[in-house]
């Protein structure tokens, strides 16, 4: 009775000449939370939709709750909950109507009124979908995924466009689902989210798995690699700094004015950085040295450049 919730191997899917998924494989234990992490266009949605049975892979094997989603879709669908990446409701439908419709499709649904309340939608239960805000639409979509009390949920970017309170609520819901024995496969761009929620993180890029493991495993893979962060004026030319640092150290500015130095950060490196800042006539604020975060791992693996 230890069938994996999801088991995928050597999955390949192309759209014309674009290979969206190029040999993805992973295994998700029942009752666990798995995060698919990757930049835009990495192949997350494609992978998830193959697992849901909406897309057919060109090759590779997929088992979801022990079933083949392409062939046994009608057996699988009553057991899963799906939150697609955007959309999924009639433009004119009221939030409450939509949720009641989805609830009617399940044998033992949660009470739609209660769920509307929990998700903070009571004030707009009678509002047509097209007039809900982006975050409210997302919350309704999440409610639709939850309402049938599924044993496995696919949440494609569940917190995209949500305010911090709503995001926190989603985190709480995912934790409660897991505690109650449901399995959750979610996709996200937020390292913080993957780190907080997932038992297992699968990082994909360009349609391939580039790393996987628990958040702790992923960040500890290179225990000597550390990160130095500081804040200063944005857009400084870091060429001279890179030249002055020992080989293997990388400098980047992941957010405007937020600088990151990775590599073996020893006292010499710290002093080089502060000396360089002094030369530039800027004060390095919030300077700190720490272990790499999942975000650093992610950026190292997937590159720091924005790609089209």
């Amino acid at each position: 009775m230890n069938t994996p919730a999801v088991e995928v191997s050597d999955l390949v899917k192309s759209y014309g000449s674009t290979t969206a998924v190029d040999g993805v494989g992973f295994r998700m234990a029942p009752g666990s939370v798995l995060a698919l992490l990757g930049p835009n266009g990495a192949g997350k949605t494609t992978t998830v939709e193959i697992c849901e049975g909406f897309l057919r892979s060109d090759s590779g094997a997929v088992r979801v709750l022990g079933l083949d989603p392409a062939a046994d879709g009608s057996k699988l669908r009553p057991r899963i909950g799906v939150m697609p990446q955007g959309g999924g409701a009639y433009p004119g439908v009221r939030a409450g109507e939509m949720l009641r419709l989805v609830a009617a499709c399940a044998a033992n649904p949660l009470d739609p009124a209660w769920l509307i309340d929990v998700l903070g939608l009571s004030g707009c239960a009678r509002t047509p979908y097209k007039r809900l805000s982006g975050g409210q639409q997302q919350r309704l979509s999440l409610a639709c995924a939850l309402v049938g009390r599924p044993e496995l949920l696919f949440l494609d970017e569940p917190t995209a466009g949500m305010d911090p309170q709503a995001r926190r609520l989603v985190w709480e819901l995912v934790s409660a689902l897991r505690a109650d024995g449901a399995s959750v496969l979610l996709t996200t761009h937020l390292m913080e989210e993957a780190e907080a929620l997932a038992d297992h993180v699968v990082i994909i890029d360009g349609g391939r798995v580039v790393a996987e493991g628990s958040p702790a495993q992923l960040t500890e893979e290179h225990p000597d690699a550390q990160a130095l962060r500081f804040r200063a004026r944005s857009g400084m030319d870091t060429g001279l700094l890179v030249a002055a640092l020992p080989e293997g150290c990388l400098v980047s500015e992941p957010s405007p004015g937020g600088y990151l130095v990775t590599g073996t950060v020893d006292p010499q490196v710290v002093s080089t950085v502060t000396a360089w800042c002094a030369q530039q006539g800027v004060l390095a604020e919030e300077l700190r040295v720490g272990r790499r975060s999942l975000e650093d791992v992610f950026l190292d693996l997937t590159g720091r450049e924005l790609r089209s």
Partner: protein
Amino acid sequence: MTDLPPTGRFTPGTFSPAPGAGAPLRMLRTHARTEAVLTMRNGEQVLLTLLIPLALLVGLANVTVIDLPEPRVDSLVPRVFALAVMSTAFTGQAIALGFDRRYGVVKRLAATALPRWLLVAGRVLGCLAVVALQLVVLGIAAALLGWSPSAVGLVWTVVLGVLGTLSFGAIGVLLGGALKAEVVLALANVIWLVLLLAGGVVLTADTLPTGMADVVRLLPSAALTEGFTDALVHGTAPALSTVAPLLAWGGIAGLVATKTTKLT
């Protein structure tokens, strides 16, 4: 957002999995009701399904734009009924399906336990409910204009209403399920107008030149108009020549649609 719950409010066990499909009849009822309610709530749909047929009925009964045998309302009702069925089951249905696909609604519903046959049945039943409402409203308006059909004619009208809805519905699903939403919108409206003007609805087939009439009689619009005319004007069962095209169009469109209908 002030109305979110305080943290830690979920009692353990709240989300314990209890999956399974709902009762088919309940799914069908809820889906069909939602479809019908959404149609009636949509202003453009109400214009298409109710206001235009109503305006044609009242207008043509009182203004002599086209030659009609007296009483004018008697020969108008079959045409207006056919138009009403065509508007809802074909044009309205195709456009709604095109945009529902665009907005991910069809996929959303397909991701639930709703079986595929129910996904179609719910829409069709929703259409039937709207058509029933249309025919009742148009019938009342016609009665106020002096129309008095026979009981036999009314029974055949119900049968033809169902057959016409299924037939036009299949063509609507074929169109709305295969193409991009904007293309569906344009085509569904153009076809509606062409069928209305040249498809044996406003001008019935027997008023057209012979060669053209034979072709037009094969169209579902002319077939349904003539079927309603048999039932309501002559008080007889619809001729086979009116039922056969409806069955053929519906059957073929339905078969092709099972192959071409896409979820998105």
